[in-house]
């Protein structure tokens, strides 16, 4: 269990949030031009790093807003939280 600092509501327990997977995956501009392998790569393949990872989270039981989190998956330490559309801070 850990505390997440929602950029809208403030510090809340992790149980109020739901994880939305890896962040900053760009949807291909012309999906119809992709091969099946490339499309599957976009849909399913994730880095799943042991270490610092950029993730999307949703404050599901609070303000219901999406935002980004930089989290170390090995120890759940959160390095930064930033809103959707903002540039990731350097860490």
């Amino acid at each position: 269990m850990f505390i997440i600092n929602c950029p809208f509501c403030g510090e809340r327990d992790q149980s109020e949030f739901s994880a939305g997977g890896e962040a900053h995956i760009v949807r291909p501009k012309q999906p119809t031009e992709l091969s099946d392998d490339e499309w599957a790569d976009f849909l399913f393949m994730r880095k799943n790093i042991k270490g610092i990872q950029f993730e999307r989270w949703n404050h599901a039981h609070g303000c219901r807003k999406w935002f980004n989190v930089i989290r170390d998956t090995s120890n759940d330490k959160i390095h930064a939280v930033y809103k959707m559309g903002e540039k990731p801070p350097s860490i």
Partner: protein
Amino acid sequence: MLNINYPKIEKKEFPNLELNLVEPIKKLNLRGKNRDFFTKAGRILSIMLPIEPNTSATIKNISALWLSPDEWMIYGKDIDKNLKISLDSEISKLNLGSVTDISDQWLLINMKGKNVFEVLSKGSPFDINKFKNTKNVVVQTLLNHVDVILHHTDTNNVDLFVRKSFSEHLWLWINDSSSFL
């Protein structure tokens, strides 16, 4: 067929805690972002929608609760049909935002007494200490795994909103927890 009857919630008293169902009471959900939306909503409701997170504004018998940067809940005894019609015609129909009547979706339970925060802290992941010393604070969190909106209206007085379908379950849990105070 939709069951529109309120669950069996009757006034209950425990040591330093009083629970009461405050229904029927009108509740509206307002959503919008632009300046015209704020101006019109403020003029019709005679209340400025709070923009600071986790806060509320109350004038007479109408309260506006901050739910997210573009969403508010309005509730109170003074909300009538004409107010809803005004909001619909000035906001919804002009596409400035949305106005939804959620009176039957959420149920309002009033909790008052010195032990209010003891009961809430038994089943909520939220740090109630942040909440109990400040009036007009609003928190959306979980209570016994059920979504709730807590509005600290006065000293040791909390308005708790819970979705109607979860209300009986939560009511039984609150009663059970209160019996161990």
